[in-house]
């Protein structure tokens, strides 16, 4: 029996503030190798802001974030970039670069320029393109892509980064159902290889199915945090979203069906 899995990402009593307003208060979370954690909550609950802080992009007002044991605020940027890949919610791409070039940006933490690419870099880019079903689009200019295709390209960039920690903010928004499934299956495979993954999602059925644990944010605090099936319950959904929902299983798959809004 091997030792307990390593803790890749830890938030210790993190409070996030914008100006003088608390966005999220007192979040403590440990994400171990092999785990996928869902961050859920209503619009404006602070999911994105929390993810940015977990990704080391902004310092917390209180508490600290540890990435593979080191304080994110003190880590050198390039080192942090090799340990953690982050996918922002907004899908921007300023120039119509080719798909393969966009995905190759994920290798910047390893090489300053593509001319220095090694076999491993090519393998990583190729694996990311394959995982996101993009090999046939590799040469396409990115302004000739549909919204869902662009989302997959930007996702592939984070995959090419090959970081042991992945934080993705609503990664599957805008993807068709086949690619949503493919993405989560890829995440599960990554986790099985030892990655620690945090995703903000709105599809609670997927959260139940693919994420071992969930963190539910509501009203600037953590309403619940633990195994997904303990967090994603009728009561918690009612409290956090103001919606009565059906939480059940169909054909052995978890299903969460919103029924009606509470007033």
């Amino acid at each position, binding site marked *: 029996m091997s030792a307990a899995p390593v803790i890749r990402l830890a938030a210790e009593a993190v409070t996030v503030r914008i100006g003088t307003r608390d966005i999220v208060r007192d979040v403590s979370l440990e994400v171990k190798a092999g785990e996928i954690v869902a961050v859920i909550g209503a619009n404006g609950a602070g999911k994105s802001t929390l993810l*940015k802080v977990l*990704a080391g*992009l902004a310092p917390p007002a209180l508490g600290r974030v540890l990435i593979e044991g080191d304080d994110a605020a003190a880590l050198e*940027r*390039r080192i*942090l*970039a090799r340990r*953690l*890949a*982050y*996918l*922002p919610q*907004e899908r*921007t*791409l*300023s*120039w*119509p*670069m*080719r798909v*393969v*070039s*966009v995905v*190759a*940006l*994920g290798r*910047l*933490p390893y090489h*300053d*320029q*593509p*001319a220095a*690419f090694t*076999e491993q870099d*090519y*393998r990583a*880019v*190729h694996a990311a*393109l394959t995982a996101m079903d993009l*090999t046939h689009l*590799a*040469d396409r*200019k990115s302004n000739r892509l549909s919204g869902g295709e662009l989302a997959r390209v*930007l996702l592939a*960039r984070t995959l090419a*980064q090959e970081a042991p920690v992945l934080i993705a903010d609503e990664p599957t928004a805008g993807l068709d159902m086949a690619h949503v499934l493919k993405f989560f299956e890829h995440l599960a495979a990554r986790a099985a290889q030892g990655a620690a993954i945090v995703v903000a999602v709105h599809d609670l059925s997927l959260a139940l199915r693919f994420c071992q644990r969930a963190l539910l944010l509501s009203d600037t605090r953590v309403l619940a945090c633990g195994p997904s099936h303990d967090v994603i319950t009728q009561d918690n959904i009612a409290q956090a979203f103001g919606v009565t929902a059906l939480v059940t299983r169909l054909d052995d798959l978890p299903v969460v069906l919103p029924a009606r809004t509470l007033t």
Partner: protein
Amino acid sequence: MSIAPRAGHDHVAPTFAAASARTPLLLTGLLSLLLLAVSLALGPDGFGLPDATAAARLILVEIRLPRAILAFLVGGALGLSGAVLQGYLRNPLAEPGLLGVSGGASLGAVIAIHTGAAGLFALALPLGGLAGAGIATLAVVLLAGERSQPVTLILAGVAISSLAAALTALALNLAPNPFASVEILYWMMGSLTDRSLEHVWIAAPLIALGAALLHSTGADLDALTLGEDAAANLGVDHERLRHRIVAGVALAVGAATAVTGAIGFVGLVVPHLLRPLAGYEPRRLLLPSFFGGAALVLAADIGVRLVSPAGDIKLGVVTALIGAPFFLWLVIAMRREGTA
């Protein structure tokens, strides 16, 4: 250098090979060197190198060489700065004047003319320009503040540019005599006429340093294509990047404007024109924009000398004459793209 296709990754390898092709760099590099040679060979009586007499050598070294080198360096500084700023601001309409540097340099030189310092010693003009560029940059940096966003930086640059333009107009308004007014007006049009090797010695080291700083931003600009947060996740230090860009533009554009006056459109048009050739990748656009800018200014200067050997037509006027139709063409191309 191109990346050789690798076995086993059929899809990736050939596309990378295409991406790393150095066509735009070779193209602009060769073109600028060719035009540099033409510029050296072009005399008042047409083409041809002067014979081997001492006087002829003097003409080549003291008159044609500084002119050709300055055209090359100034064009390069403007092209590269434009490419870096467009990449940094992720906006194809950004240009080197945005940070207030060229406005400040112009004002400094105009003050040198206005006060008569330029009449006392020849280098008062470029030195005044450098001082103006330095002060303007400092003002922009202080105004924008630490940890500023690109937009704040640009607003500060626009504010300082406007102030510099107003003060330049005031200096022209209060010019001591008509000759000074004409001199100020001519200087503001931008020109390479009668520049000496001293001008080269003043400008070249500063432009080289600025260009080196600007060129070092390539990887960060590539990452910025994904937005500021994703870039930060890829290891970009936004503070450091901003410092390098402000310092690089201040040095390169400040020195360029100080020796030649404001030469418009080069920094805007050149990166724009070369971007498709560089696969829209900001880093791959940098060096070609340097050489492309050099080629454009050399070509414009050669044109000026052919059309009016007496120096009646100013260089900045010609680049503007080239630049404006370019924008007309751009609008038409965009409309076609939109309807296609």
